[in-house]
């Protein structure tokens, strides 16, 4: 079933995830504080781009956080991602919240606190090691 997804941060990673989810049939809203970052995405049905602060309750409400099934925070800043994700999880009770935490030590801590996290640096480390061994 198509999910309603809210993504915070339209950097390279956020934009790619948004596009892949829309292509797969999900309805995606992506927010960024800088409209300039939406240049990474082409308009297409099922995708909304909204200039908004992903750590503001009011802005998130405007972006439809209350009807989101999935919330993903993917900005370049761990701290912003952690705050946005916890607002979604605790304040708005979004069912599935995924959060990018680059620092592996903090990632472990947030996993312990009940957040679903992804760490690009850990993923990259695995890929580099795999390439070295190939």
């Amino acid at each position, binding site marked *: 079933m198509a999910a309603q997804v809210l993504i915070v941060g339209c950097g390279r990673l956020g934009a790619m995830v948004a596009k892949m989810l829309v292509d797969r049939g999900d309805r995606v809203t992506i927010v960024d504080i800088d409209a300039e970052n939406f240049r990474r995405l082409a308009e297409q049905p099922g995708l909304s781009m909204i200039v908004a602060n992903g*750590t503001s309750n009011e802005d998130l409400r405007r972006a439809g956080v209350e009807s989101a099934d999935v919330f993903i925070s993917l900005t370049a800043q*761990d*701290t*912003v991602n*952690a*705050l946005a994700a916890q607002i979604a999880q*605790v*304040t708005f009770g979004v069912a599935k919240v995924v959060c990018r935490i680059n620092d592996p*030590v903090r990632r472990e*801590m947030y996993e312990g606190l009940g957040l679903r996290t992804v760490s690009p640096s850990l993923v990259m480390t695995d890929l580099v090691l795999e390439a070295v061994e190939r």
Partner: protein
Amino acid sequence: MYVIVVGCGKIGYHLTRALLSGGNEVVVIERDGRRAEAAAEEFGSIIIASDGTEPTVLGEAGAKRCDVLISTTGQDATNLVACQVGKSSFHIPRVIAVVTDPDHVPLFKTLGVDVAVSTTELILAHMEEEIAGSGVVHLLPLHGATTSVVSIHVPAGSPAIGRELSGMITPEGTALAVVIGRDGLPRAIGGGLLLEAGDEVIAITPPEKEDELWRAVTGEG
């Protein structure tokens, strides 16, 4: 006490000065190199020029034996993460965050921040007292702020002077506690006590009954 201050902007700087002069042991973590340098000129070697949201940095700052961590940066996200790392990775007994967006206050508390200080709310609370000018001053919030202990001032020339409080009908859900005279001494309500100019009537009331209570006590409005 051993205190870690994260962020040496205006709040962090003055806080550090006050904490040091109070005889506390203080370490300050400031990410901005130039700001850290300026702070080091005044405070010496207690400044760490690094990111206070990183567990390794907090570890080096002695977070394990720290009594209080106070995160004072202008970014709520930074202050939250510094507090969460301090609390869950280092078990710091008391973590305090400065909060810019008042909407974040309940969330921060739910997430284990012991004290979330909203600068906006602090200023507004003071301003509301000034603006309202009703003479109802908040002394202490009770029961998660559903009721407060307040003080109602009786100014010179007030129609309340000479009134007897013991038989007075006050709004439902409010209660008068005690009267403090101009001499600073408490006088019990009852026994024919009459209000005098300069008295402070200490009462308990929910916020929505404040005006009504004030009118009942002072006979004004």
